[in-house]
């Protein structure tokens, strides 16, 4: 068994279990908050993008293009360093808030495209039916279109969520402690890159595998349109 200790000293990893546990919890927590934000933003942007009002859909399209054409890292830097400069906030954003907002805005753009595809996949008859019973626009969206739209796009949304979880590793650049940060702690404390990053990779793989299971389950349960 000695050769394993040479390559991968699991005893060292065992010493850092508290850090890795906190890191995993932080990654999940950050991803969860960003996901909620992204779903809200994504829904509104998708509805704006489909509106007939040229101002509304141009704003939505511009937002999506801007996010898609710049790297997440730059988005994190811009938001973390520049939102405090806005007059409406009288204090600095801390790293965690900045990171979550940046991740949420980023994932929101990608999710809006998925949700838009979902809304477009709801058949025209559904909207007409809702209109004919006298529902207002808001009611149609709330009770008829959006529930069906989301049911259709749960698998791609879960796929985008696992991208979000992976992307959350980038907030370690502005000093947020999460799973990747736990690896950096091991690297700086013990100078053991194998133990640090192989463990991190393994933890991410486990999270990814769980997401894959979810996605397969959702696909079987909902049988929705695949994007």
């Amino acid at each position, binding site marked *: 068994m000695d050769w394993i200790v040479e390559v991968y000293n699991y005893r060292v990893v065992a010493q850092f279990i508290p850090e890795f546990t906190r890191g995993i919890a932080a990654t999940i927590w950050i991803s969860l908050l960003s996901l909620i934000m992204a779903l809200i933003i994504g829904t509104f942007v998708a509805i704006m993008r489909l509106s007939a009002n040229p101002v509304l859909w141009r704003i939505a399209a511009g937002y999506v293009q801007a996010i898609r054409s710049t790297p997440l890292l730059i988005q994190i830097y811009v938001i973390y360093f*520049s939102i405090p400069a806005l007059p409406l906030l009288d204090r600095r954003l801390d790293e965690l808030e900045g990171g979550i907002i940046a991740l949420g805005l980023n994932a929101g753009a990608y999710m809006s495209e998925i949700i838009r595809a979902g809304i477009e996949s709801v058949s025209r008859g559904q909207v007409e039916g809702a209109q004919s019973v006298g529902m207002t626009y808001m009611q149609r969206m709330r009770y008829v279109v959006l529930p069906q739209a989301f049911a259709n796009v749960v698998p791609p949304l879960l796929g985008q969520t696992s991208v979000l979880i992976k992307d959350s590793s980038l907030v370690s650049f502005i000093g947020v402690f999460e799973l990747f940060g736990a690896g950096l702690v091991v690297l700086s404390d013990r100078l053991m890159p194998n133990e640090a*990053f192989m463990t991190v990779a393994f933890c991410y793989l486990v999270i990814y595998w769980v997401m894959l299971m979810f996605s397969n389950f959702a696909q079987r349960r909902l049988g929705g349109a695949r994007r």
Partner: protein
Amino acid sequence: MNEIKILEAVMPFLLEGLWMTFKISLITILCGSVLGFVVGILRMVGGWAISTTLGLYIHALRGTPFLVHLYIIYFVLPTTGISWLQLEAFPAAVIALSLYTSTYVAEIVRAAIEAVPRGQSEAARSTGMTYLQSMWYIVLPQALKLMIPPMGGIYVIIIKGTSIVSVIGIAELVRAGEHATQRHPKELMLIYGMTALLYFAYCYPVLRLARWAETKFGSVRLPS
């Protein structure tokens, strides 16, 4: 007017960074596409063992952040003590990005091959072509056309991915921006805004081109 002066001062460095970003992304799209193409084809035509192994390869890379790949290649591989795995920053960045790209390309190749109607390969087989012949002469030429539009999306993913290699000290655009902010710490917003704009100027035309290609060649939907 102060802003304009500062921009004048930092612009040459940012453009130098953009040039590095351009070089890395160009090398990567070439290497990553070749690798991804080979992986994608082998996964389709290879036997059970090959396609399972390659499936694991794709899942392993898809399931971990690019940042982790980069650190494993740059920090973990040298600890093996094998001399050719002691990589400098630039090759490490290119290799990590190429591996990452190859998983996307492999998925595109598979989706494109599957998008060619079954009747095509069946007809080819019925004229007496072997499986490999029908692949090479009938299916692949048609699939190739479908692969062009999504490659634009891949190219943009690579360009955005190059921002992360700044962490191992490659002097690309983000790194250049960081240096500039150290010289002008009060103008963080301006400099990072400019950096974002330069990325936009590089990525946006590619995305537009990809959309134009999509209307021209048709496209395949990717599993996200």
